[in-house]
């Protein structure tokens, strides 16, 4: 569920979260398929980002993400249970890039 800037919206995208006014009032509901008109209205609302459906966008490469993971675990290699936990987190991170 990536959060993207209003200027990058394209017709056909689906809202993953409702678009709300500052007061919390829902202007467009979750699941709304965006049309050119809706996008124009959203741009006129003065908000910067909206959530659209789809896989999250990763900001760093997989190699970098796994390097960072190794660094984070560098103090606890071989400690009880830590390798198990690291393995699960590693699989989770790899899954983000599939």
């Amino acid at each position, binding site marked *: 569920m990536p959060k993207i800037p209003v200027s990058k919206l394209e017709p056909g995208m689906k809202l993953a979260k409702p678009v709300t006014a500052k007061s919390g009032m829902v202007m467009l509901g979750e699941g709304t398929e965006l049309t050119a008109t809706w996008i124009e209205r959203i741009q006129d609302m003065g908000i910067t980002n909206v959530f659209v459906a789809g896989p999250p966008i990763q900001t760093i490469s997989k190699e970098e993400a796994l390097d960072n993971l190794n660094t*984070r675990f*560098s103090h606890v290699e071989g400690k009880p249970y830590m390798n198990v936990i690291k393995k*699960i987190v590693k699989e*989770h991170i790899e899954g983000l890039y599939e």
Partner: protein
Amino acid sequence: MSNMDLKVLRHKVENINTLPTVPGVLKRLSVVIEKPRITLVEISAFIANDPALTTKVLKMVNSAIYGFPGRIASVSHATMLLGLNIIKGLLLGVSVFELMQKAMSGLYEHSLACAIASRVIAQKKGLKEPEEVSVAGLLHDIGKVILTLEFPTEYQAAMNEAQGKSISIFDAEKNQFNATHANVGSWLAEKWHFPRNLIEVIECHHRPALAKNAPLETAIVHMADLLVRARGFGFAGEIFVPEVNAIAYELLNLSSSDIKDVLREMEDNMESAEDIS
């Protein structure tokens, strides 16, 4: 500095609301929640009188941190649904968010992710009030905010020491203050008449084996804290993952698919949760 007197430290922490850097809303809030016999109605009125606070509370209760189905539209509904103890913790949470970000860049994301992870683990373990554990996850590092507010120079020194010597921020705090953020957070929680379990989680989240009243809740927040660091969300003073406490790990006895679910829920909800402040 390393021979800082504990009594002086505690006194300063307990009178944190006299600091000029503490925002007005937190000062007013501390007056309200320090009352031992505050009622739900009073709390509700306090929130409703402050439009900015109302918005924050409603965003928070409708966020992934709690995971209530449907939309909660009014403060009175939120307070009735959550109850006194949770709403007190939540109010503190939303009022210190901005401070968290100023205190330590990334502490806010760390705390949010920890709140989400705590709730998911609590639900997996079948706890009756997962929201209470989630509030504990949100507030477990409140002591760090207080320490950076009250002693910015000394805390920076502790952070530098942690980085320079590759030790945990917890140990660096001990060297610098003779006390840790866990102690400091629990003093404040006690002063504010937080529930006993919440005080204990804050006090013991680094040493869950010491928890007497709420060992399970403490183990949950300990594990949530560790998983958030393992995934690399936010920043809580140092980048390294600490060693898991074996007693807590065994007590929780989470399967690898449980842990994967926790990670997935954090992943799915972090972006939207960051919108709360």
